[in-house]
C-alpha cells in the first residue's frame, strides 16, 4: 500500500468511518420505521451510512493522490504548543470548582503569558491578577452572573 500523501486525510477519514459505523450500529437498536412514520433510527441510519461512504472515499482519495504532492510537514513542536495550551485550559476548568473561577483563571493567564509567550514575571503576574479581578468584578458583581465558587471565593 502506498503511503498516503496526506496522512491527515487518511486518519481522519478512518476516524469518521468508525464514527459512522458506530452511529449505524446504534441506530440498528432503535425503530427504523414505526407505524406513525420514521422512528428514531431512521435519520441516524442515513447520515451514519453516508458518513461511512464519504469518509471511505476520503481515505481512498488520500491513498491515490500522487505521492509527489508535498504535504506540508507537520510541525510537531507547534502542535505541542497548541495541545499544551488546551491542557492548561482543561486544568483551569477542572480546578474551577475547587479554587474558584478567579484563582484558576489567574493561573491560566499566568501560564499562557509565562510559558507560551515567554514574557517576564513582572508582566505575567500583574496581568494574571488584573484579568481575574476584572472578570470577577464585571461578571460576578456587576452582572450577577453565576461563576464557579470554590473553597476560597
Amino acid at each position, binding site marked *: 500500500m502506498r503511503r498516503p500523501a496526506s496522512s491527515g486525510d487518511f486518519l481522519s477519514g478512518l476516524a469518521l468511518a468508525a464514527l459512522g459505523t458506530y452511529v449505524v450500529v446504534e441506530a440498528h437498536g432503535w425503530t427504523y420505521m*414505526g407505524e406513525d412514520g420514521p422512528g428514531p433510527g431512521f435519520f*441516524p441510519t442515513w*447520515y451514519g451510512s453516508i458518513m461511512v461512504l464519504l469518509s471511505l472515499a476520503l481515505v481512498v*482519495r488520500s491513498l491515490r493522490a500522487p505521492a509527489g504532492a508535498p504535504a506540508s510537514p507537520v510541525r510537531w513542536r507547534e502542535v505541542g504548543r497548541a495541545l499544551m495550551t488546551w491542557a492548561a485550559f482543561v486544568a483551569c*476548568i477542572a480546578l*474551577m470548582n475547587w479554587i474558584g473561577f478567579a484563582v484558576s*483563571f489567574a493561573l491560566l493567564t499566568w501560564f499562557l503569558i509565562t510559558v507560551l509567550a515567554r514574557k517576564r514575571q513582572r508582566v505575567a503576574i500583574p496581568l494574571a491578577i488584573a484579568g481575574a479581578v476584572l472578570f470577577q468584578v464585571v461578571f460576578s458583581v456587576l452582572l450577577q*452572573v453565576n*461563576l464557579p465558587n470554590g473553597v476560597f471565593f
Partner: protein
Amino acid sequence: MEMLSSLIHGFEVATTPAALGMCVLGVVLGTVIGVLPGLGPSATIAMLLPLTFKLDPAGAMIMLAGIYYGAKYGGSTTSILLNVPGENSSIVTCIDGYQMARKGRAGPALGMAAIASFIAGTFGVVALMLVAPPLAQLSLAFSSPEYFALMVMGLAMVVLLAGDSLVKALLAMLVGLWISSIGTDLFTATTRFAFGQVELLGGIEFIIVAIGVFAVGEVLGNVEPDEPPTMIPVPKGLRNLLPTREDMKRCRFAFVNGSVVGFLIGCLPGAGSTIASFISYGIEKAFSRHPEEFGHGAIEGVAAPEGSNNAETGGALVPLLTLGIPGSSTTAILLAALILWGFKPGPLFIQDQPALFWGLVASMYIGNVLLLILNLPMVAVFAQLLRVPAYVIYPLIFGVSAVGVYSESSSMFDLGLLALFGLLGYAMRKLHYPSAPLVLGLVLGAPMERALRQSLMMSQGSLSILFRPIPASLLVAAALLLLIPLIRRLNAARLQVLDREEA
C-alpha cells in the same frame, strides 16, 4: 390614512421623556448583553421582569423590546474581533467578519454590521407595522412540510460553505447532524447517543459547540507559532474605520437580502434567527459576482447575516403580537411579560391595545436610530481592542468563553464540553475541515428531522404532503443549489478543454 394617525399617536406615546428613557436604557443594555458572549437577551429579560412590575407597561415593554433587538446589534462585536459569537445568530458573522478583522478591516466590518442592522431593523419595523395581521395568517400556512423543505434548502447551502473540499464539508455537516440528534427523541422518548450521561439527555446546547469550535479552536490554532503573529494593523482615523463608499455599493443587494429574508423567516415561529442568518448568507454568496471571496473577508458576508438577524426581530413580533405565538425563547419571555402585565397578545391585540402596539412600533424606529448613533462611534473604541497583545487576548477569549457557557446552565459538564469542542475545532483546522458546515448541520439537524416526522405523521405516511406548492418549490431550490458545484466543475472542465485547444 388610519394607519398614519395610529402611528402618530404611537410616536406621542413613545416620545414622552419616560418612554424615551426606557428606550435608551433598553437599547444600551441590549447592546452590552449582545457584546458579551453567552449572556443572552432571554436571560436578561427574565431577570428584569420582577423590576418591571413597578413600571408602566408601555414603558417596560419598550425597554424589554429594546434589549431584544439591541442585543442583535452588539452580537457582531466579538464575532468580528475575536471569532467568539456574541449571540447565537452572530455565528455566521464570524465567518467573514473575523477574516476581515485579521486583514485589518475590523472597523469597516463593525461599521457595516451596525449599518446593515439599522437598515434591516428599520425595514422589519415598517413591515411589522404594515403587514402584520395578513402576514400572520399567511405564516400559519407554514407547517411541518414547509419547514422541512426550508431546512433541506438550508442544508443544501453547505455547498456554498464548502471551500476547497466538498467531501470534507459534507463530512463536517454530517457530524453536525449527529451532534444535533444527541438527546431524548420527542416522539418516542428514546434516548439517543447520550453515553449514559444525564446531562446529555436534553442534547448539547448549540452555543457551547459554536464557541468551542470557533473561538477556542481559533486560539489553539493561533498559539502554534513561537513568535507572536504580526500585529494586525489598526488604521487611524474614523474615516478608515468605517465602510467606504465602495463597500456600501457592494452591499446593496445584501441590505435587501438581509431585510427581506430575515423578516420573512422571523414571521415563521418554527424558524429562528440563526437559520435566517445562514440562509441570507447563502443567498448572498449564491448571487454574488465574486463568491470566492466569501469566507475570506467579503463585507457582504457580514452585511447579509447581520441585517437578517435584525429584521428577524421585527418578523418575530408578528406571530407574537397578532397570534400570541412566540417563535423563540426570547419572544416567549416577552409573551410571559405581557401576560403578567395583564395584556393578552392575540388576534384582537392591535385593536384592543393600540397605544401599546403603536407605541412599541414607534419606539422601535427610535431605538434603531439610537442604536446606529450608539454603535458607530463605538466602532473606533472596539477596534482598539485589536491593539492589545495576543497573549492578553487569548486568556481573555478563554475566560469569556467559559463565563459565557457557564452563565447559561451553571454546569461544569458544559465547560468540559466546551474544552472538548475546542479541541475538535483545533483538529478541524489542522485537518482542513471547514467548521461552518458543522454548525449548519447542528442548527438544522434536529428541526429538520422533527419536521419530516411530523409531516409524515400528518399525512399518515404519504410523501405527497411534501409536494404542496411551498415545500415543492423549496425542495427544487435545494436541488438546484446542490447542482451548483457540479455546474461549476463542468464549467471549469470546459474552460480547461478550451484552453488546451487554443494552446
